Each structure stands twice: as structure tokens, then as C-alpha cells.
């Protein structure tokens, strides 16, 4: 598609800004239907076993308590595990909340107290006592590594590594070798809004479910299946989502429990998780990667051997693409990789921002830095020297890869060329200064998506799709797209998202929403234009200029062309002339035949080059990130203002990954112990320097209909490695475990 940009590509402020800065935006726990009950969940303190007895007498005596729902008294829910499958496609047997008395993980819900007030529910939840029979468990990752396996059925998005050459032989012959075990601690998403569900029981008995999710239609399908309802009995809404980062990809237990209770009690209910309970579901898996690299004396990579393991639960096989990235992104004639999962008695690990790549790219890029130093070559030069213009793993060309430009522009902006190669050679007072860099890569994905465009008598353009804006700026870029496609000023466009009743849109995630929903809105708006023109052409009482081909829609009005250039017609008037109240068009954006062929023939990725400065006090183990520059090649940038925020935000999260974030598992009980914001440290204001984001010009008509690649994840990929590599440059010490903390 050819897009002449008057709206797309402009740094427009968020159209949901006023709602958010005034506190008017309503999140999942904020509708307050009359008679609503508050639900507070009681969780298991053991990892594996069986509930023997639930003592709830004391809890039931708390004034205001209405019901305590457990596996013993819950209403009917689907029996079989397959009914609890959700859109994420993790093979295995999904966890069924309150299904029976068996305990599969520490933190598993065992009861939910419902009361007239939050205070009563909270107190009663503290009074529920449960006796357990404890069974043996293992929550130790090191032990789990001995039981690692390859699931017989793999996750739908799993990309099996494809070996090339003879990596072992080439490694043996390599003049320069590096080898190491790299480790990433488990992390929790910890969006600022805790997972919550408010269920409204409508007069006709259907349920309107306000849920914190990234996919309202996925949750609708899940609830319908798991609660044996028809889809039209459940409507899921999430117009505002207080961050998610993957924690809302799967249905979290609160939505099941709240809807089940609403069914049971025939009343509106709300279940909000506590911050400690945010550590009882999804988390980024703990990971180890063994990386062996071999190079010839001229710094040419000759061999790459990557072995990786991530953890999963006993009941599901969560898989991540952690080992493939180096094989794709580097020109190395001999390469092989191996991936396994290691089972623990915990909840299933899950996708967290840039799943797979955040782990695999960062750990690999730390190893690449080691190899560059082993070769005695500047890390940027080393990467350029071993640059691949194709997907080297699949031997496939790419739709585009402006990583060279990103490296050059990032390096220029950062001042990389003034860097001294020798570790520990840059000092400022007591502090050692380190400059490190890394590259990033993430899939550029596109999923079929539908959108509806509607023109009303008020002359406003209404766009609807079941996408979710989890802070990503989707409202804004879709408005820009509609403005561009329809010829409408931004302030006359309404965007409706976050509702399962709207045209079909896949769950928000993986950075595909901008490309996919954007294309759907583009098509719907064009279709609506065509409909409008056609309706006018048929319309006898419309001015003759407006009934011809030479009419254009610009600035929210119809204009004549050539000799009729002075003539115009408002959209409301035009609609009146057609005799219709509304004009509507719905379209679905699909790859199409050309797109499908392209997907078979060409690989598609987003790329980045990250540069970092740290200051390290070598005696005190303190690390401060003082500069970050990220040059991103992501195709067309819909809105440089919100896109830069996306990249910066991911860099903040990656700073946490590099320096702060670790969910501390007490293996003895299988419980994450630092389950709060005081001891699970996400970066604070003071940790984050000014960060510069550059978008490299990358024209790519093939990757998606609008030339968009998506920018939600790429900022995670490489940034943590750039920080770790900068710490090496400052200190001469290699840290192979993230996060790198004082005393490490």
C-alpha cells in the first residue's frame, strides 16, 4: 500500500491521554455494579499435595461474608483439561482452578471468600485454615535440569533450531574459543495494575466480565469453554489495561473464579489479586544457556553451539525460542543448537515481554562480546564482520534488515568510536566507566485481524476492533491510521477497543498489533470511503460533482476537484443525502496469497543496536547506568512519540533484568519469597538515565500491509546484554548471571 503520510508517522500525543491523566479511564477493578461482592483468594502454602480439610467456620462468622467457594462447593465447571486450553497454545494439561483437592503449585487458589465489603472478605480470607497432605516436590532448577526433556508436542510458535555445517568439528579446529554457562533468574511481569475481574450479571442472565487481559476474545472463549457457557452468554471488556507485558496473555485464575462465583451466587462479584498473589501465576522462566563459540584468527565466527533450558511446570510444557537467535543473526558456517525444558512443581512459566529473545538474545550477545574480546576486536566491528544479510538459520532472505544502519547511527550518536578497547581503562574519579553494546532481534509478525469503520450522523468516524491497548499506544496509532485512510481529522475519530463483542482481533502481544490491527483499520476505512462514494453516486439529490469520480475526502469533508474545487460537502450532510443513518464497513486484513508466498520465501525481523554507558564503583560493587542509546530498525514507525516510549519502556525493563530483578524461589516450599515491590526491585526513577531512541529509516512494503514491524519487544532484546557488556568493559570482569547485583 502506498501511504502518503499526513497522520501516520506523526508524533501525535495519546488520544487516551485525558482519560488517563484525569483518572477517568476505568480499569478492570473499577466498575462498581450494585450489590457487588468482593472476592479474596486464599492460596496454598505448599507446592504439591492434597487438601485434607478446609476449616472455614471462623471465616463464615465474619459479618458480611456471603460464601466461601472451594473445590467442594463450587458450581459445575468443565471437567476435562482441554476445555481450559487458552490461546497461547502451551501443550499439556492446563491448570483448572478449584477443580479438585490436589495441589500442583505453591500459591494455587484453594478458596475464595465473598463478602459484602472488601474489608470483610480480606479478614475472612485470613481466617480460612486448610490442612494439607504434603507430597514430595522439586522446585530447584538445578535439580530440574537433570530431568530436562523435549516435549513430544511442541508449542505452536516454537521454532526448532536448524543446524548447519559441523559445529563440533569446527569448534575443535577454531583458533579462538569461548565457552560459558549463562543464567537468567526468573522474573515476574508485575504490571502496576494487579490482575482483577469484575463480573456484572446482566438482566438477561449473561455475564459482562471486566478483566485485566491482553485478549478479551481469548478470555471469552476460555470462559465459555471452561464454564460450559455459550459465547453469547459472556462478554469480556478491557478498554484500559494497566500494563501486562505478557501476564495477561493467558486467562489468570481470578477471571475464572470471579465468573464461576457470579454464576454460583447470581450476583456481581469482583476478584482482585494482591501484589503477593501476582507472584502465584505467570513468570518469565529461569534459563541457562551453554554457549560455545569458535572463531578463526581473523575474527570470523566458525562455530556456534548453543544449548538452552528453561523451566516449566509438571502439568504444561511451556517452551521458548531462546537458542535460535544467534543462528539466525550471525553468518557462521557451522552452528547447532539444542533446547529442552526442565519441570518443576511450580505454576507454568509464561511469556513475558519478548519471550525467548529477551533471554536468548541477551545471553548470546554477552557471549558474542566475550568472543569479540577473545579475538581482540572491537565488539561493534566484530558484529559487523560477522553480519548476516539473510536469516542464516533458514538460509532465507529477509524482507529487510537495516541493522547496519542502526549500528552506524547508534554508534555515531553514542560516540562509540572514542571508546578505548581495554577494559578498566576509562575512569572518572573513583568510578570506572564502561561502554558496551549489543544487537537485538525480534520477530516481525502479522496476524489476521478485523476492524469496523462506521460513519454516523454526527459526522464522526467510529473505529472498532477487539484489540487491547495495554499502554502500547494502540488507540492512538489506530486513530492515526483511520485519519490517514479515511481523510478525517484526528479529533473526529473515536476508537473503541477492548471488548469481545467487537470485530475479531488476536490477543495483544508479540508486537503484532500495530501491523495487524493497523492494516485492518486501513482496509475498513478504505472500504467505508468506497461505500460512501458509491452511495453518493447513486443518490439523485446529491450535487453532481459529488456523484463523480473526481471527488475527494479530505479533512473530514468531501471536496470537488478541478473546476469543482470550490465545492464541498460535510460528511453529515453527505450521509443525510444518502438517506442512511450510518454507513459501515468491516474488513479483515489477511496476509493474502502474495503475503503467504512472501512468508514462505522471506524471513522477517525487527533489529536494533543498543549502546550503554555504566559507571561502576569497583570497591563497592555499585553499578549505575548513565547512558543508553537504542537505534531501532522496525520498518514504518506509526508514531515516533509513542514508539520511542515503547522502546524506552522496554529498556527500563531490561535494566531491571540486567541489574535488579530476580524472583527468589525457596525450593524447600516451591514459593517465590520476595513477592512484593519492596524486595522484587523493578527500576525506580533514580535508576534510569536519559535514554535516546533513534528510528532508522527502513522501508519494507513486504513485511506487512502498512510496512509496520512492531516495536513492543525489541527494546528488551540486547539492552540487558549491552549493560552487562558495559560492566565488563568497566571492570574487566565477566558476569554470566543476570541480574548482576552488589556482591555478585
Amino acid at each position: 500500500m502506498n501511504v502518503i503520510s499526513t497522520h501516520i508517522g506523526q508524533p501525535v500525543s495519546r488520544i487516551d491521554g485525558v482519560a488517563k491523566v484525569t483518572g477517568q479511564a476505568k480499569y478492570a477493578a473499577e466498575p462498581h455494579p450494585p450489590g457487588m461482592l468482593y472476592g479474596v483468594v486464599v492460596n496454598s502454602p505448599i507446592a504439591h499435595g492434597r487438601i485434607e480439610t478446609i476449616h472455614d467456620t471462623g471465616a463464615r462468622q465474619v459479618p458480611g461474608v456471603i460464601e466461601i467457594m472451594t473445590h467442594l462447593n463450587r458450581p459445575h465447571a468443565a471437567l476435562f483439561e482441554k476445555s481450559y486450553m487458552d490461546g497461547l497454545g502451551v501443550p499439556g494439561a492446563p491448570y483448572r482452578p478449584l477443580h479438585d483437592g490436589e495441589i500442583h503449585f505453591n500459591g494455587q487458589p484453594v478458596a475464595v471468600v465473598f463478602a459484602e465489603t472488601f474489608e470483610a472478605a480480606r479478614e475472612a480470607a485470613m481466617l480460612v485454615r486448610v490442612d494439607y497432605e504434603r507430597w514430595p516436590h522439586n522446585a530447584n532448577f538445578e535439580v530440574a535440569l537433570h530431568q530436562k526433556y523435549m516435549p513430544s508436542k511442541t508449542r505452536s510458535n516454537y521454532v526448532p533450531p536448524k543446524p548447519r555445517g559441523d559445529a563440533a568439528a569446527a569448534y575443535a579446529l577454531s583458533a579462538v574459543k569461548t565457552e560459558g554457562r549463562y543464567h537468567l533468574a526468573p522474573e515476574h511481569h508485575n504490571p502496576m495494575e494487579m490482575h482483577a475481574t469484575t463480573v456484572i450479571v446482566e438482566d438477561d442472565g449473561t455475564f459482562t466480565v471486566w478483566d485485566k487481559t491482553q485478549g478479551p476474545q481469548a478470555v471469552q472463549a476460555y470462559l465459555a469453554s471452561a464454564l460450559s457457557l455459550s459465547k453469547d452468554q459472556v462478554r469480556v471488556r478491557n478498554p484500559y489495561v494497566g500494563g501486562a507485558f505478557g501476564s495477561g496473555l493467558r486467562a489468570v485464575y481470578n477471571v475464572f473464579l470471579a465468573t464461576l462465583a457470579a454464576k454460583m451466587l447470581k450476583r456481581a462479584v469482583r476478584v482482585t489479586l494482591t501484589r503477593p498473589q501476582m507472584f502465584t501465576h505467570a513468570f518469565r522462566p529461569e534459563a541457562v544457556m551453554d554457549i560455545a563459540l569458535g572463531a578463526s584468527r581473523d575474527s570470523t565466527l566458525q562455530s556456534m553451539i548453543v544449548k538452552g533450558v528453561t523451566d516449566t511446570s509438571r502439568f504444561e510444557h511451556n517452551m521458548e525460542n531462546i537458542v535460535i537467535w544467534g543462528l539466525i543473526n550471525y553468518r557462521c558456517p557451522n552452528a547447532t543448537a539444542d533446547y529442552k525444558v526442565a519441570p518443576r512443581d511450580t505454576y507454568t512459566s509464561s511469556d513475558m515481554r519478548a519471550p525467548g529473545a529477551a533471554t536468548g538474545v541477551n545471553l548470546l550477545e554477552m557471549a558474542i562480546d566475550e568472543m569479540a574480546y577473545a579475538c581482540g576486536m572491537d565488539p561493534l566491528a566484530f558484529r559487523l564482520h560477522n553480519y548476516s544479510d539473510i536469516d542464516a538459520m533458514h538460509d532465507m532472505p529477509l524482507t529487510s534488515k537495516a541493522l547496519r544502519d542502526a549500528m552506524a547511527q547508534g554508534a555515531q550518536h553514542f560516540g562509540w568510536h572514542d571508546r578505548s578497547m581495554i577494559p578498566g581503562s576509562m575512569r572518572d574519579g573513583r568510578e570506572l566507566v564502561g561502554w558496551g553494546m549489543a544487537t537485538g532481534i525480534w520477530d516481525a509478525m502479522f496476524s489476521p485481524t478485523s476492524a469496523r469503520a462506521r460513519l454516523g450522523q454526527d459526522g464522526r468516524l467510529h473505529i472498532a476492533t477487539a484489540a487491547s491497548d495495554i499502554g502500547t499506544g494502540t488507540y492512538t496509532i489506530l486513530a492515526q491510521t483511520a485519519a490517514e485512510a479515511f481523510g478525517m481529522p484526528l479529533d473526529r475519530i473515536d476508537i473503541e477497543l477492548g471488548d469481545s463483542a467487537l470485530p475479531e482481533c488476536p490477543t495483544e502481544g508479540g508486537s503484532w498489533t500495530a501491523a495487524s490491527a493497523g492494516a485492518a483499520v486501513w482496509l475498513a476505512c478504505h472500504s467505508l470511503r468506497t461505500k460512501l462514494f458509491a452511495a453518493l453516486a447513486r443518490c439523485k439529490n446529491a450535487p453532481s460533482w459529488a456523484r463523480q469520480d473526481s471527488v475527494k475526502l479530505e479533512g473530514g469533508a468531501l471536496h470537488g476537484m478541478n473546476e469543482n474545487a470550490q465545492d464541498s460537502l460535510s460528511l453529515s450532510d453527505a450521509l443525510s443525502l444518502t438517506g442512511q443513518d450510518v454507513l459501515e464497513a468491516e474488513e479483515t486484513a489477511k496476509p493474502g496469497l502474495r503475503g503467504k508466498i512472501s512468508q514462505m520465501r522471506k524471513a522477517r525481523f525487527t533489529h536494533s543496536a543498543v549502546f550503554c554507558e555504566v559507571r561502576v564503583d569497583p570497591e563497592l560493587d555499585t553499578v549505575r547506568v548513565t547512558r543508553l542509546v537504542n537505534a531501532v530498525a522496525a520498518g514504518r514507525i506509526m508514531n515516533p512519540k509513542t514508539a520511542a516510549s515503547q522502546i524506552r519502556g522496554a529498556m527500563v525493563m531490561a535494566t531491571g533484568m540486567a541489574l535488579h530483578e530476580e524472583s527468589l524461589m525457596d525450593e524447600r516450599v516451591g514459593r517465590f519469597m520476595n513477592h512484593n515491590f519492596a524486595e522484587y526491585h523493578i527500576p525506580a526513577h533514580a535508576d534510569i538515565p536519559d535514554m535516546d531512541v533513534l528510528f532508522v529509516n527502513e522501508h519494507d512494503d513486504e513485511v506487512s500491509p502498512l510496512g509496520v514491524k512492531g516495536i513492543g519487544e525489541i527494546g528488551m532484546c540486547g539492552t540487558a546484554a549491552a549493560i552487562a557488556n558495559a560492566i565488563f568493559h568497566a571492570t574487566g570482569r565477566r558476569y554470566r548471571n543476570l541480574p548482576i547485583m552488589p556482591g555478585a
Partner: protein
Amino acid sequence: MTRESVAVPCRLQINGQDYSADLPPSVTLLDLLRERLDLTGTKKGCDHGQCGACTVLVDGKRVKSCLILAVSIPDSVVTTIEGIAQDGRLHPMQQAFIDADAFQCGYCTPGQIMSAIALLEEGHIHSRAEIREFMSGNLCRCGAYNGIINAIEQVVSRQHRNQAGEAA
């Protein structure tokens, strides 16, 4: 152990309006606002004083409303995010947050804005480092930190210009 929760009188002025009721003492200011007064602009991000999403002004000072029993601040003046726009016009800090793209999901935003307004009153605005340190009680998982500091600096510099204008 007997537990009696006798309701206790609670008298407050919230966003310019008098509020009085008998409340169980276990009701926090945050839950009073969100659950009983439908002032859901003040957010619950942790409920333990560790994130700053629930920041409101009590008698002009920024505090975490999740750690305050509503009955324990008799006759206090409470200002929430719903109470800072005047005559339908956004507070300059609200506008600056939009201009500087100082939020993404918007959930920490009311707390950041209330905190920033108090920060200006406190005067901890002499450098970006100082602003960062004195905003560190407000976590943002979307990582909008750069934008937030830019928004605050924008308001500070506009104030300085206005003051300079008045002085001239």
C-alpha cells in the same frame, strides 16, 4: 480473642466536598476513595506503600493512601487526581504529562501526577537527578520515567517563566 469493629466517625474534606460517615476503622483512605466514593482515579498498585500509585495529597502533602486508616486523619483535606483540574481545564501537570508522553498504560499516572505536584511545592526540583530521587517513590512498570521527568521540568520551566514575567 474477641474482635469488635465498632464504626468510627470519619470526617474529611475530599476535593472540596465535605465527607462524613461512620466507618469500620479497617477501611483505608484508598479503599474509601475507590470502593465507597467511586473515586477510582487513585490506584491500587500494591496496597503496601511500595509503589506510589495511591498517592494523594493530605493537607497538601503527598502520602500513600493505602497505608492510612480513613478514620485516623480527622478533618483533613484530601486532594485526589479527580480534584486538580479546575473549571474543566487540566492542571498544568496533567497537560505536561500528555505533552511529554509521560505514561503508557496510565495506571501509575495519577499517583505520579499527584507526587509531581507535591514535588514542586517541596521545591526538590534543582536538577534532573534531584527530581529523579524525589520521584522514586512512584514506580512505573511501563518505564515512562524519562517522559515523567520531562513533564515535570516542562512545568517547572513554565513556572519560572511566569514568575520572571510577573517580576518584569
